[in-house]
């Protein structure tokens, strides 16, 4: 039988992994819906409203999944990790309370109006509700990222008898890793949604849907992805440098670097071995890590062996999950770069024999070869892959600390019999697996239904939607 600590960690990881999938979608999708609505308000073109109507369903479904799994998270602190609140509750508590007060209610209340209030409130109020929901989800993310970043780079407090007391709230909120983590996460959400929209639109295209709506969303998704991915690479690099400054052990694990020193290679592939404390099968670019992290080939990069005490206690995270997670995240990012920029380049080609302005003679979506749609479809959930991998890198990378340097993970765990943790873990896993499949199934169903619609039905006049409530 595994011990309560390990099972509780697996349970928390399972819960947060499932939960994070849905806010990652709703944060950016909320803004995307606002964009669709504003474009519709301005142009009056039905394609924007059709896009709104299709994607608001995906939003509602994702939001419900996020809410119910988020409630689970809020109880997990008490059931599995009571030591967390007992030790740092004076800081974590207010941050969580502000999330509920400023964001959670806002989203939940205006979601009702956004989803079902179309004919009951004037058009401007419906647009305002859409904005408030998008704003609420982003505020929610802000507070959670503040707390999470503080757990990585804690400051603005003092310890008295093992309990943290806040001394400087500005320092707590604007802790050193917060801005980087927030930007990285918001961009991750934007990319996840860009690929989701592009992927599902590509799926509808493959099913034979060539309507104005699907062309609009496919273009929007691909252009958004192409715009965000370079920003994300830049933000990720800056986040990495920030981590190097504050959590060098995490970066050492990401790089798979055991010994501190200059001229450290950039390890492309390896099998980290904690027994021999070295990498097997290593393939690397000489001086690469020194160049990236220190911008100089003989820059000194910290190694994992610095984080082992003289009596053999290991104070760095387990290397393999951090090391592989980082490679999965970066690899997915480069695949995103390739697809979005490749597609854009293909779309920007001129029509053969056309004359005139380049903007008007681009071939657009019709220029895309068929495999591109298939690749886009396969990459529908690539944002999830990269987000989860990145999340594992940063969270497992914080171990063995729950709050870096303040609270060891093992000190916070509940004294609950391991059998109870195991049985609830299995129940959660069963529910989560079933729901994830049902969610993807429902998206496929919605896409097929939309693609199967006749043209007449899709473009039937929907002017009544513009009218205020009678």
């Amino acid at each position, binding site marked *: 039988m595994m011990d309560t600590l390990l099972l509780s960690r697996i349970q928390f990881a399972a819960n947060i992994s499932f939960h994070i999938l849905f806010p990652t979608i709703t944060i950016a999708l909320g803004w995307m819906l606002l964009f669709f609505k504003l474009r519709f308000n301005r142009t009056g073109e039905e394609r924007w409203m059709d896009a709104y*109507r299709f994607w*608001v369903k995906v939003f*509602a*479904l994702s*939001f*419900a*999944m996020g*809410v*119910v799994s*988020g*409630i*689970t998270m*809020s*109880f997990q602190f*008490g*059931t599995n990790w*009571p030591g967390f*609140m*007992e030790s740092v*509750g*004076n*800081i974590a*508590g*207010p941050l*969580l*309370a*502000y999330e*509920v*007060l*400023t964001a*959670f*209610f*806002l989203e*939940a*209340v*205006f*979601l*009702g*109006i956004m989803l*079902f*209030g*179309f*004919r*009951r*409130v004037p058009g401007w109020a419906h647009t305002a509700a859409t904005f408030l929901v998008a704003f609420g989800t982003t505020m929610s993310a802000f507070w959670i990222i503040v707390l999470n970043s503080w757990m990585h780079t804690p400051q603005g407090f003092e310890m008295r008898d093992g*309990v943290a*007391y*806040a001394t400087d*709230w500005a320092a707590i909120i604007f802790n050193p890793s917060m801005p980087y983590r927030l930007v990285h996460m918001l961009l991750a959400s934007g990319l996840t949604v860009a690929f989701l929209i592009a992927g599902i639109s590509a799926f509808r295209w493959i099913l034979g849907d060539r309507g104005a709506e699907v062309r609009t969303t496919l273009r929007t998704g691909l252009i958004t992805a192409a715009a965000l991915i370079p920003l994300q690479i830049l933000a990720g690099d800056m986040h990495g440098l920030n981590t190097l400054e504050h959590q060098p052990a995490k970066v050492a694990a990401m790089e798979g670097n055991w010994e501190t020193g200059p001229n450290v290679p950039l390890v492309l592939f390896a099998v980290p071995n904690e027994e021999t404390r070295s990498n097997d099968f290593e393939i690397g670019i000489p001086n690469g890590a020194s160049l990236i992290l220190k911008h100089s080939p003989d820059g000194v990069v910290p190694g994992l062996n610095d984080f082992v005490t003289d009596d053999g206690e290991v104070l760095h995270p387990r290397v393999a999950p951090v090391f592989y997670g980082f490679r999965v995240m970066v690899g997915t990012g480069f695949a995103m770069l390739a697809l979005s920029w490749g597609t854009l380049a293909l779309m920007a080609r001129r029509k053969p024999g056309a004359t005139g302005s380049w903007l008007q003679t681009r071939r657009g979506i019709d220029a895309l070869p068929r495999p591109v749609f298939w690749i886009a479809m396969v990459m529908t959930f690539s944002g999830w892959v990269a987000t989860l991998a990145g999340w594992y890198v940063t969270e497992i990378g914080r171990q063995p600390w729950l709050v870096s340097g303040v609270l060891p993970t093992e000190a916070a765990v*509940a004294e*609950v019999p391991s059998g*109870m943790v195991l049985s*609830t873990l299995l129940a*959660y896993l069963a529910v989560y697996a079933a729901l994830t499949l*049902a969610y993807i199934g*429902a998206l496929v*169903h*919605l896409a097929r239904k939309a693609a199967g619609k006749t043209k007449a039905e899709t473009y039937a006049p*929907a002017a009544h*939607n513009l009218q205020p409530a009678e």
Partner: protein
Amino acid sequence: MMTLFGDPEVWLPATFAALMGLSILIYVVLDGFDLGVGLLSPLATEEERDRMVASIGPFWDANETWLVLAIGLLLVAFPTAHGQILSTLYLPVAVMLIGLILRGVAFEFRVKAPVTQKRNWDWAFFAGSAMASLSQGYMLGAYVLGLAPGPLTWAFATLTAIFLTVAYSFIGATWLIYKAEGRLQQKAVDWAKGGIWGILGGLGAVSIASPLASPRVFEKWFSFPEVVLLAPMPLGFALIATLLVLALRHLPTKDDSWAWFPFSATIALFCLAFVGLAYSFYPYVVPDQLTIYEAAAAPESLAIILAGTVFVLPVILGYTAIAYTVFRGKATALSYD
């Protein structure tokens, strides 16, 4: 008591206990009626079920948020207590969470998944509502008996689990009397007629068990002059319950007047019962073990949250009222158009 407003270490925990109590009460009323609608859903036809779901569709999410606020305040304001309470109630909490997950996603899936799966999601909607209601009732019972393990607690908690589920069904039925019309409204009246005996029995059981289980609670209710001063509470309860029974006999009326009464009266009953429980347990957050003063977090942290709460809570109540106004009137099938 005399130093209530002098010392922040006294009035801050008391204020937060009141805020937490308020959110639990709002939660029990609001999610109570929508969980109740879920519990009653198998008794309806498919078309009626669509209208029942539509009557709570715009609200359930915000209703559930009060639970998050309540648990948030518990872990924020009373960090020592929350670990003790939640790790003792580990399994019922897990059952409740899985129930809330199933109920919450069923709303969306029943209309977005292929039609052939609608029945399964309707079933999940009912099962989730039942799991959440039963486990909340179980936790209430265990809490009333001071979270002491043993067969007596399990038996009593099982009893309160059933009673709270009936009480939720009852308030759900009264909500439907208010929001439905025609055949469904008539059905809701019939459901309420059956449910009222469950809710009265349940409250009776808790009222008898709490003083018997705790000499301190007995002392608080049955010593002089408290017994006289508190008399309006049981009397008020009896009055409202009588009016409710009478009203249910005459509903639905031809012009649909008084359809609002059973729901409002039930809210009053819930409030009275809640005040009674709160009076019994004050100043304890874990009954007979840990007071709110012993369990409270640092005053500076509580002050930070209070500042925000005082400002934000009225705003939340305000826009909640707007939402209920927007969706006033009889429920019809929900659509995104």
